[in-house]
């Protein structure tokens, strides 16, 4: 490339000034950008209107394309499934036999659970789902983990509502526009989910790591009882997520806790369900939750 023309202004004062002015504007742009950045760091919802406009403007394209993309999205996985098919088959048969027994046990437990709930008069719950839709796009070029959902305030979506898939918790609604909503995924670094270990209700916090895993930190510091394969479910404390939604499975222990893989991989789930906030349940349920929480904490303190 040849050096650009009009670079050296010579003795023309006017040319020199105009170069100086354009520099000044450039620096001004950087400074204003920094100010905007500081504002949006201290008030994350300040510019949500602009982002909502952006999401709404591109939503028709995203929605149409996500319908097409669903069919081809798993091609690689389908092909790789052919390798080691025989050994996988045997393994799956073993697992199936084991899980059949577990299903029978679970069914009995479910019946008992329902009976107890009826006894406690807890069954008057609000509808389980506000809406079901696809994730239509995500912030795949940014380190923040957010996804856009094809539902908005016109469908009854409100900020803060939990979003889940059959596999587990996906995230919560961060910003809602008329027909789209931004979901803060569990794997986002700013998303802290109160969880507990499914086996013994050990309370912990799950903080996103931005790469499909979460950091699990026990509430009681100093102890690190986690081991690989531990299932973490939402504890229901905080009142945002209902208790018992699967979140992640521990894959590795660290010095302060553990690293766990998120069960509902947002890249894999096809449809997600938006649920009402857990807080909005009946007073009885909240009371019950508080009792549960207290019990959980005393158990965790052992």
């Amino acid at each position, binding site marked *: 490339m040849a050096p650009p023309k009009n670079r050296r202004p010579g003795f023309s004062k006017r040319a020199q000034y105009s170069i100086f002015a354009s520099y000044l504007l450039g620096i001004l742009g*950087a400074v204003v950008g920094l100010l905007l950045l500081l504002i*949006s760091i201290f008030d994350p919802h300040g510019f949500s209107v602009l982002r909502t406009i952006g999401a709404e403007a*591109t939503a028709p394209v995203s929605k149409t394309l996500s319908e097409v*993309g669903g069919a081809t999205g798993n091609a690689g996985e389908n092909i790789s499934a052919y390798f080691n098919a025989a050994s996988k088959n045997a393994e799956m048969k073993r697992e199936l036999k084991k899980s059949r027994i577990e299903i029978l046990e679970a069914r009995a437990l479910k019946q008992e659970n329902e009976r107890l709930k009826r006894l406690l008069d807890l069954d008057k719950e609000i509808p389980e789902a506000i809406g079901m839709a696809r994730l239509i796009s995500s*912030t795949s*070029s940014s*380190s923040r983990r957010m996804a856009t959902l094809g539902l908005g305030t016109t469908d009854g979506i409100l900020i803060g509502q939990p979003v889940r898939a059959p596999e587990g918790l996906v995230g919560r609604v961060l910003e809602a526009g008329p027909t789209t909503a931004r979901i803060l995924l569990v794997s986002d670094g700013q998303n802290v989910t109160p969880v507990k270990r499914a086996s013994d209700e050990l309370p912990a916090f799950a903080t996103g790591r931005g790469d499909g895993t979460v950091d699990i930190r026990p509430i009681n510091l100093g102890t690190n009882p986690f081991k690989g394969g531990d299932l973490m479910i939402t504890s229901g404390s905080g009142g945002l997520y209902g208790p018992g939604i699967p979140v992640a499975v521990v894959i590795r222990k660290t010095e302060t806790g553990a690293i766990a893989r998120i069960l509902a991989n947002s890249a894999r789930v096809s449809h997600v369900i938006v649920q009402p906030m857990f807080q909005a349940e009946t007073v009885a349920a909240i009371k019950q939750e508080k009792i549960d929480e207290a019990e959980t904490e005393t158990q965790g303190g052992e």
Partner: protein
Amino acid sequence: MAKPYRSRINRQPSQFRIKFIPSITVILASMITALPLITDYPILPPMGLLVLLSWRLIRPGYWPVWAGFPLGMVDDMFSGQPFGSAAFLWSLVFIALETLDRRGVGRDYWQDWLIASLSIIFVLICGMLIIDFQSNLLRLEILVPQILLSILLYPFVTRFVGAIDNWRVAA
């Protein structure tokens, strides 16, 4: 149907194309996050930035120094980064590139690629640190695939932008 008669010499290229095509392509590239690509970690190259750098390096002097600011603001609407992050970082890149251009030395293609690569690395790493400095400083390795992909994609984007540029100035 016969084409309406056009002079074969002394044609003027469309002023609209000359003036607006670069900005439009950058904005469209920023909007690429609207595609239904759902990923668990950052992998998609920052297409807006790649197209912007291509234009900036193919046609030095086309953008004024402050152009990074408005285009970065548009990118912030779609990228999911905190608002103002691209406006700030792209402005810094533009100031740096302008200073580089002032040296008045001709650059070749490889140097352009190197400059673009450094700019991409700078913007991506700073973009991640802006979100959460303390905890993200320890896991910058998440960005490695995205950085590599972006650097390898840059020559193709430049080719494409070059083709658009030929069409832009053609009469």
